[in-house]
């Protein structure tokens, strides 16, 4: 962390980071992550604002509505801490809080929810299909996923602190969008690997009848063509199919 501003003590940073793990603990439809962000900021505010009035004002602004991707909220928290340490005006911090949430949400959704999580999940399912035991499969998933997850949180706070109000510029040079694209490419490859392992291998071995394998290829293609709108109807159709078979002995 650079030398323009006195860095926060390690114990304060550790407490802010630990509390950021609960940023969604009281998620609600009014202030979203607002109270969680205020909770995470408390150790830093307590350290930076010795004057009770200044502390109260700072807590007030950090309890305002706020929402970002939970993992990347540490980026925002790092920036907020820096801005508080630099004595930025109340108005400037409030406007920054309002502006930064959306982009961090979109960036995190794309990198974590739409790429890293499905990649780790698909790889874990492949490991299971390849014969890895339950304990090792789950352990591998948790260790790999959370290595990325926790690294992102720690990196985020550090970047946020170093960038302060210049977070947007800093994020552009961090190439998170490029990282998302790389992870997505691996995900696409892993999806293909899963299809090869789960459908083609058992079919070639004669363990999966050709009509079932054909149906599997067709529904996968349908998912790719029709997109997210078929996800819920498909789950509902599976439930209805199970209920129908139970009730009427259909397809027997």
């Amino acid at each position, binding site marked *: 962390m650079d030398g323009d501003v006195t860095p926060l003590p390690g114990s304060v940073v550790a407490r802010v980071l630990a509390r950021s793990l609960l940023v969604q603990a009281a998620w609600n439809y009014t202030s979203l992550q607002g109270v969680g962000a205020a909770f995470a900021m408390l150790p830093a505010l307590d350290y930076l604002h010795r004057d009770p009035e200044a502390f109260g004002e700072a807590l007030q602004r950090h309890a305002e509505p706020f929402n970002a991707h939970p993992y990347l909220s540490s980026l925002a928290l790092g920036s907020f801490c820096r801005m508080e340490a630099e004595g930025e005006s109340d108005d400037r911090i409030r406007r920054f809080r309002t502006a930064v949430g959306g982009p961090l949400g979109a960036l995190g959704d794309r990198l974590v929810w*739409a790429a890293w999580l499905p990649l780790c999940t698909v790889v874990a399912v492949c490991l*299971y299909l390849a014969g890895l035991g339950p304990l090792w499969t789950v352990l591998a998933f948790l260790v790999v996923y959370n290595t990325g997850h926790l690294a992102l949180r720690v990196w985020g706070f550090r970047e946020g602190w170093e960038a302060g109000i210049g977070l947007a510029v800093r994020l552009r040079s961090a190439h998170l969008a490029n990282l998302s694209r790389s992870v997505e490419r691996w995900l696409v490859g892993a999806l293909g690997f899963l299809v090869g392992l789960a459908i083609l291998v058992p079919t070639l071995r004669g363990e999966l009848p050709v009509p079932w394998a054909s149906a599997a290829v067709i529904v*996968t293609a349908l998912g790719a063509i029709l997109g997210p709108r078929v996800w819920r109807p498909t789950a509902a159709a599976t439930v209805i199919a199970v209920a129908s078979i139970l009730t009427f002995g259909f397809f027997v």
Partner: protein
Amino acid sequence: MTALALAVLGGLVALDGAALIQTMVSRPLVAGTLAGAVLGDAALGLQIGAILELFLLVGVPAGGGRMPDGGIAAVVALAAAAAAPGAGGLALGVAGGLVWGDWAGRGQEWVRSWNATHVPLPDRGPVSPAAVHRSIVLGLLAEAGRGVVFTGAGVLLARAVAPPLAATWPLSQDPTLALLLLGGLVSVGVVFRGRGLGVRASVLFGAGVVLGLVAGWTAT
């Protein structure tokens, strides 16, 4: 006693889903395996968790949106499958887990609406550290309570209903598994579409298929 243990597990996975850390213990793959371990069959847990995982692959908590609770779905599915061993229990478990997980996801909406009544808001008056701490604790308790209640109720219902229903299930293990996988594979296609259907994505997907084929063929 195992019902209580599963309900507690449901509370933990509900917390992990959004409110606390999000280590993804709440994903069906992990929650199913843990529930299986509680019930003495971790392999069955992983199998059901993997099937549910395929269904819920696109169900991620982006933007605070409501999604089925995959962790609770997996625990309840395991309770059903363990209560009625065989293909019928597997089918009932997955189908029942999907329905129950969806309801548990709706329960999260209630918790989030209730949270709005106790969080300190700046426009309602001065915010104190004590009020912030209180809201965090209440939010965690509500989320854990949701998990315990939904999972406990689901487990009890699954244990009562699964054995008699599963006894009438007419299909054997393989077609049952294939039927369930068909539903899950749609999500695989949906996730692929989300990454774009361009030439590069198709080449990568094709390379993955070939590698999967080779790896699977040579593995045994």
